[in-house]
C-alpha cells in the first residue's frame, strides 16, 4: 500500500535530518559552492604561475569582495522577504561623503554616526513608503537610488572629500590586523551576524515566512509590515557601513563610491541560492556568491583580458550559475 503522492517520489531522497531548517536538501542549493570550487581550481591551474595562488593575491580577492559582501548580506534579508533594494549603492556613496565631511568638521565619532545616520534615514523612508503606503519596493528604492546619489553629488559639488583621520581610515578599510585586512574582518563579521540572524533567530524565520507567503505569515500573527520595514532599514544601514568601508579604504568620500553595487549585490545573493521570489535565503551562500564574483574578476584580470571581455565572461558565468541552480 502506498500513501505517497507521485510528486514526492520524483524528488531526490532526503538526506539526513541534520543541516538546519531552511535547507531544501537539494543539490541545486549547493551549486554555488561547487561552482566556487570549480572556478577556483580552474584559475589555480590556468593562472598558477601568474601569481593567482599567492597569499597576497588571495587576500586581495577577499578585500575587493568585502564591500559587496557586506551590502549583499543586507540584500539577502530584503530578497528573502520578497522585496528588493536598488538604493544600496547610492546609499553607500552618500554615506561615504557624509562621513568624510563630518569627520573633517567634527571628528571621528560624529563622522561614524553621521555615516550610519544616512542609512537609518534612507532605510526608514524606504521602509515606511513600502510598508505603510504599499508602494512596491522596486519603485521606492529605484527613486531613492537617484535621490541619494544626487544628494551625495550635490553636497560635495561632485568633488572627492579627503579623509585625513588615520583612525577612521584604519578602522574602515585601510588597516589590517596582522596579515588580515580590516575590510575582510568587517565582511566576516557581517556575514556571521547575518547568517545567525537569518538562520537561527525568530526574526530570521519571520522574514523567510513573510517572503514565502505573506498572507499565511500574517494569519500566523507575524507583523508583516514591520518585517518589510525592518529589512529595508537593515539593508540601508548595512549599505551605509559599506560606504564607510569605501571611504576608509580610499581615504575619501565620493558620490561615485558604490555606484552600480546594487546589481553586484543582487547577483551575489541570487548566485548564493536565495530565491528571487522570497521565502528562501542563505547568508553564507551570499558570501560565496560575492566571493565567486570577486574570484572571476580577479582571474580575468590576471588572464590579461580587457574590461570589455571581462564583462562578457562575467555576465555569462552568472547566467550559467543561476541556470544550473534552477529547478528542473
Amino acid at each position, binding site marked *: 500500500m502506498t500513501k*505517497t503522492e507521485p510528486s514526492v517520489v520524483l524528488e531526490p531522497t532526503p538526506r539526513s535530518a541534520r543541516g538546519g531548517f531552511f535547507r531544501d536538501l537539494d543539490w541545486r542549493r549547493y551549486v554555488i559552492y561547487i561552482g566556487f570550487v570549480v572556478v577556483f581550481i580552474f584559475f589555480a591551474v590556468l593562472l598558477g604561475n601568474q601569481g593567482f595562488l599567492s597569499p597576497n593575491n588571495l587576500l586581495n580577492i577577499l578585500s575587493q569582495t568585502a564591500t559587496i559582501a557586506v551590502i549583499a548580506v543586507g540584500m539577502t534579508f530584503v530578497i528573502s522577504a520578497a522585496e528588493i533594494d536598488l538604493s544600496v549603492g547610492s546609499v553607500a556613496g552618500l554615506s561615504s561623503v557624509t562621513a568624510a565631511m563630518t569627520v573633517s568638521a567634527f571628528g571621528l565619532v560624529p563622522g561614524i554616526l553621521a555615516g550610519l545616520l544616512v542609512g537609518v534615514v534612507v532605510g526608514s523612508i524606504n521602509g515606511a513608503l513600502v510598508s505603510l503606503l504599499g508602494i512596491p519596493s522596486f519603485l521606492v528604492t529605484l527613486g531613492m537610488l537617484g535621490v541619494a546619489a544626487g544628494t551625495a553629488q550635490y553636497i560635495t559639488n561632485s568633488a572627492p572629500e579627503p579623509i585625513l583621520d588615520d583612525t577612521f581610515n584604519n578602522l574602515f578599510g585601510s588597516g589590517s590586523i596582522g596579515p588580515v585586512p580590516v575590510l575582510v574582518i568587517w565582511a566576516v563579521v557581517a556575514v556571521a551576524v547575518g547568517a545567525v540572524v537569518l538562520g537561527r533567530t525568530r526574526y530570521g524565520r519571520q522574514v523567510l515566512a513573510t517572503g514565502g507567503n505573506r498572507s*499565511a505569515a500574517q494569519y500566523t500573527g507575524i507583523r508583516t509590515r514591520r518585517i518589510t520595514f525592518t529589512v529595508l532599514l537593515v539593508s540601508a544601514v548595512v549599505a551605509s557601513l559599506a560606504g564607510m568601508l569605501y571611504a576608509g579604504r580610499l581615504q575619501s568620500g565620493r558620490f561615485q563610491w558604490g555606484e552600480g553595487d546594487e546589481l553586484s549585490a543582487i547577483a551575489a545573493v541570487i548566485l548564493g541560492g536565495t530565491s528571487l521570489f522570497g521565502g528562501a535565503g542563505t547568508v553564507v551562500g551570499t558570501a560565496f556568491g560575492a566571493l565567486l564574483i570577486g574570484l572571476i574578476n580577479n582571474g580575468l584580470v590576471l588572464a590579461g583580458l580587457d574590461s570589455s571581455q571581462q564583462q562578457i565572461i562575467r555576465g555569462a558565468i552568472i547566467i550559467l550559475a543561476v541556470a544550473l541552480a534552477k529547478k528542473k
Partner: protein
Amino acid sequence: MTQAVNAVETRRISKSFGPVTVLTDVDFAVRQGEAHALAGGNGAGKSTLMKIIQGVYQPTSGEILIEGEPVSITSIQDAKAAGIGMVFQEFSLVPSLTVAQNIFLGVEPMRGGLVDDREGVRRARTVLQEMAVDIDPKAEVGRLGTAYWQLTEIAKALAQNARVLIMDEPTASLAKHETEALFALIERLKARGISIIYISHRMDEIYRVADRITVLRDGRTLFTSTLADTTPAEIVEGIVGKKIEGELTYRSREAAAASEVLLEVRDLNAGPRVRDVSFAVRAGEIVGLAGLMGSGRTELARALFGIDPIRSGEVLIRGEKANVSSPDRAIAAGLALIPEDRRDQGLVLDHSVRENLLLPLLGRIRRGPLLDLPAGRVLAQSLIERFGVKVAHPGRPVRLLSGGNQQKVVLAKWLGTDPSILILDEPTAGVDIGTKSEILDRIRGLADEGRAVLIISSEYPELLAVSDRVLVVRDGSIVEDLPRRDIADEESLQLAVQGVQS
C-alpha cells in the same frame, strides 16, 4: 443505457515511480456523453491516473484507447489533440486578459500574421452560446467572479474541441446557485456527447451529476458501477476501506451549559459585511456558523482574529475586554484561526512541514536570542505524531503533502499554541472522507478539553455533526441561534440559512 462507445478508456494501466507502484492494472472507461465520477482516498491514484490521461505522465505499462482506438499520449499536446480537456482546480487563466483571449490563449486566431481579436471574440461567443452561459467574451477575467473563471476554463477546453472534460472538485469554490448552474451545464454537455470525468469527495454531488462511478483504492480499480446500483455507504466504504458508521452524525456531548463563557462578542461591526453581531461561546462548546458564501461568516472570523479592523463593538474573553486588533494580539489573547484557504493563508508551501508547524511557536523554542533548533525538531515531531500527519520527512516542503495532510499541518500548527478559543473556517474543504471524519473527531476532542470552538462550514452535514449550537448568518448579521436539538435535519438548516419559512 445503450451500448455506447468509450470516449476514453485505460486498459491495465500501471505506473511506478522508481520502486513505488502508484497504479496497478487500472481499468477505467468513460462512455460518450456520460458523467463518470472518480473517487478514492488520498493516495488512491486518482490524480496519477488523470495525469496519465492528460499526457503528463507516461504509464509504465498498459494502454489508452480514445474512441476505441489505441493511442499513444506522450505529451499534454497529444492529449489535447485527442480531445482531452482539463478544468483545473487551481484555475489556469490570466486575470489581465479577456475571456476570449484566455479561451484562445496559445491558439489565437490569426489574420495576416497578427492576432485577430475580433475573430477570437466571435468564436468565443459561439462557444459560450453553445454552453448557454451568459458571459461577455470581452470582459477581463480578473474582474469576474470565480464561477465565471470556471466557465471560461470549460469554454477554453471546448474551444479546443475537447470530447472529454476532467473536472477536479469543480464546486469547491462555488456558491450553491453557481453549483446548480454548473450541474445544468454538465447536463447540456452530456447531451452534446461530451464526457465528463468528475472527481469529487462530495457524495450528494456525485449522485446529482454522475451516471457511473469508479472507485480507486491503493492504486487499483475497486469497482465501477452505475450509481443507481450502489449506495453512498458502499462508495464511502470503498474509499476508506472500512465501514464508517455515523461519521457525520451528531453525538450529543456533555453540553457545557453551566460552564464559563470564554468568548463573547457584543454589537460587533467590522469591514463592509459584519453588522451588529453579538453572541457568546462557552468553554467546551462547539458553535457552528452557517450562512451562504458572502454572508459575512468568514469576515466575522477575520474581524475576531484582528485581520479586518473592528469599527465598533467589543470582544470579551473570559469576561474581560480583549484587544484583538491584530493577529499577534489575538493569538496572545488565546485565539487561533484556521483560515479557509490553507494554501494561501495557512501554509508557506515551499517551506518544510517542520518550519510551518513551528512558525507560531518560535517564541517557545528560544534559547537566549537564538532559536533552539533541536528543541524545535522535538516539538515539531510531537505535533506530527499527535495529529497523525503522514509525512515522509518533516524537512520536506509541505507543498508535497496531500490536501488532507496539509490541513492536519495547519491544525497542528495552531493547536501547538494551545488556544482557548478556536475558530475554524472550512476545516475540511477538499479533504477526503476518511481524513474528514478524523478532523471532526479531533474538533470534538478539542472542545472536550474545555476549549470554545467556532466552526464555519458550507457543508451542512458536517456542521450538524459537530455543532452543539448553530448561528445562522445572513447579510452580516446573526439572524438565528439554534440549539442543535431544535434542528431536525439538513433540510431545515438549509431553509433557515436561505431565510425561507418551512
